[in-house]
């Protein structure tokens, strides 16, 4: 056996084990919930924090990045609640329903619980404590994964939102789940939410994180029913360490759009496990990350086409300044029988500094409908239209400081799959053109960066949210040195 299979526990791992043992009796839920926690904890205890020898965590070594564990957050006191008054300010101008969690606990006085037909809002802590069967049916069931960060979340999950949109209901307003730190001391929080949109339901859900010096592990389970239309937006402005997981299963003939906006963050891991479980669904999964200083943003996707005739488009962009580091790992898996799948994945990194680094690793795993096909077919050529699709705004093709490792395995005919990854600096020809008209270097760069970002932000369907995100991106650009 390899000596490094289970290295000695780090102080953080020991602290996490101790925290679980200490909190076990106080965490919400008994019986089945407790059994779920115990099982998840054993998973963590056996494997420890994810580290660089775990392929999926290669670029974000939590064992090295989490030198210590911050104390588990306590419910917010008055001072913390006051500090949390600014919750959700990025979308301040948007007509929206806010559900606010401070230091991992639901705060009703900051939340909008106005009744709306077809919408039910609850909290995870309450649902777990009561053993609510409609919640228990989903928790830990949406997308099975052996990911240790998810296991840790399951072991220690405290509060979170439970949102249900009943069949055919269309929400009047987007729902904004706001998770923020109010404490002025370092703290850690494990949050778990569940969003169920039943058949034909229509909803826009925004998960916002605004954290100070906090170690956050947040997971959301999302069930998108047949024919439902769901826009899921995640806004992350998180200092310290932020690990977020989306576990989603999407039904047939649905429309699912996911968008990530990450800025002003220190260490972020955004991982998404998304399964297309019914035929005829269209999805777009996009994101923009803005990094500077020593920011580290890791986007890791596992997109599973389990049913045929679905279309998915992934488009992720990062803008990197200073010594920042972005990671994109995107894996598309097309299961047997998922014929006529049309999946395209694209990632681009814009490097503003020679010291910034972008690692891009798109992967495709496509299995034929039968063994014969799998044997007979060879890797298909990339769709020629993809080349056009990959051409992006204002970016030269010059590769620099980037680690691009596309992996491609195709064993099927009836699928259109492709991916592309590039990283490069701003096109000097475009910059010169703008400057030759009298526009300063800084402003020329800002115009080109804005164009690069906007192309992806334009994927956000809701106008008010889209504008707020564009404004936030401009603000970030405006504070560039």
């Amino acid at each position: 056996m390899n000596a490094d299979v289970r290295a000695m526990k780090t102080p953080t791992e020991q602290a996490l084990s101790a925290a679980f043992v200490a909190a076990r009796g106080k965490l919400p839920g008994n019986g089945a919930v407790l059994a779920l926690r115990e099982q998840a904890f054993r998973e963590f205890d056996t494997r420890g924090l994810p580290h660089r020898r775990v392929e999926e965590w290669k670029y974000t070594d939590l064992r090295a990045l989490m030198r210590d564990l911050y104390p588990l957050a306590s419910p917010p006191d008055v001072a913390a609640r006051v500090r949390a008054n600014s919750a959700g300010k990025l979308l301040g101008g948007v007509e929206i329903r806010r559900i606010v969690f401070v230091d991992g606990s639901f705060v009703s006085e900051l939340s909008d619980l106005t009744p709306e037909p077809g919408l039910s809002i609850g909290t995870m802590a309450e649902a777990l404590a009561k053993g609510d069967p409609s919640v228990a049916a989903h928790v830990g069931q949406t997308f099975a994964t052996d990911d240790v960060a998810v296991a840790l979340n399951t072991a220690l999950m405290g509060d979170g939102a439970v949102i249900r949109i009943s069949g055919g209901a269309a929400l009047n307003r987007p729902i904004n789940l706001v998770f923020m730190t109010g404490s002025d001391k370092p703290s850690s929080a494990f949050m778990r939410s569940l969003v169920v949109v039943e058949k034909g339901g229509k909803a826009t859900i925004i998960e916002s994180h605004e954290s100070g010096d906090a170690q956050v592990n947040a997971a959301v389970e999302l069930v998108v029913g047949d024919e439902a239309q769901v826009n899921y937006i995640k806004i992350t402005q998180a200092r310290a360490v932020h690990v977020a997981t989306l576990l989603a299963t999407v039904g047939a003939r649905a429309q699912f759009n996911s968008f990530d906006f990450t800025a002003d963050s220190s260490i972020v891991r955004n991982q998404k496990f998304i399964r297309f479980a019914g035929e005829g669904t269209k999805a777009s999964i996009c994101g923009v990350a803005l990094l500077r200083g020593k920011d580290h943003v890791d986007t890791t996707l596992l997109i599973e086409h389990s049913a045929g005739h679905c279309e998915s488009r992934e488009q992720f962009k990062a803008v990197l300044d200073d010594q920042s580091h972005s990671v994109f790992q995107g894996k598309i898996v097309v299961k047997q029988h998922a014929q006529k799948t049309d999946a395209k994945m694209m990632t681009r990194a814009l490097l503003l500094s020679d010291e910034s680094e972008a690692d891009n690793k798109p992967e495709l795993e496509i299995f034929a409908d039968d063994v014969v096909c799998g044997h007979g077919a060879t890797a298909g050529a990339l769709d020629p239209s993809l080349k056009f699709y990959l051409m992006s705004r204002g970016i030269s093709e010059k590769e620099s400081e980037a680690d691009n490792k596309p992996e491609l395995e195709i064993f099927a005919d009836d699928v259109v799959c492709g991916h592309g990854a590039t990283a490069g600096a701003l096109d000097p020809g475009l910059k010169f053109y703008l400057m030759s008209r009298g526009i300063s270097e800084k402003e020329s760069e800002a115009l080109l960066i804005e164009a690069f970002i906007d192309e992806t932000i334009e994927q956000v369907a809701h106008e008010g949210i889209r504008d707020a995100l564009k404004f936030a991106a401009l603000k970030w650009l405006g504070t560039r040195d």
Partner: protein
Amino acid sequence: MAFLEVKNLHVEVEDKKILNGLTLSVEKGQVAAIMGPNGSGKSTLAYVLAGKDNYKVTEGDVLLNGQSILQMAPDERAAKGVFLAFQYPVEVPGVATMTFLRTALNAQRKARGEPELSTPDFMKLVRAAASHLGISQEMLRRAVNVGFSGGEKKRNEILQMAILQPRLAVLDETDSGLDIDALKIVAEGVNRLRSPERSTIVITHYQRLLEFIVPDVVHVLAKGKVVKSGGKELALELEAKGYAQFQGEAA
């Protein structure tokens, strides 16, 4: 003193010598044509005047109104009145034409200590200039040069020139890729901007453009220097005899 004085200019690009002691003066209000064979350094001169990176000046100077511009960034030169109409205007996806024009104009006005133009005044200015050049509102709504034909891109360059009102306009092979109708529109646009306050350099391979934009002087460039200067009749002579006669002289 001439408005533009290029003095004994030596320029290298990626360790290759392109300009070899080029000396040239352009008077205020003058239209100077620069002709020459491929590789004679015409476009290099245009880029060096506009301040493109990677053009290394090893000797000589460029004075604009008596002031050296070689240390200035492209935007500073633009604010001083230098304008280059590109041979190959680039597409700038995601940057709206109107935003681009307004940002450029206001940046130049600001650099010169002039107030920004109000939105209605700006719109009026653009509409008037665009209509002369046959540029539609629909084109103005698009991103800079994106989806424009070759002729539309060239017209867009002249539109920018009309709006920015430079003191030194350098037209780099503005005739290339244009059919005769487009050539006339572009030439009329340039002629409309002829002014005693503006110096213009028209770089071209062919005499044809000079039938429409009649130059005051013609300079022949070969192997990185001016080998002959004369009146507009020099262009006709070149058309008849070709450039071969000068290829040896500069060697």
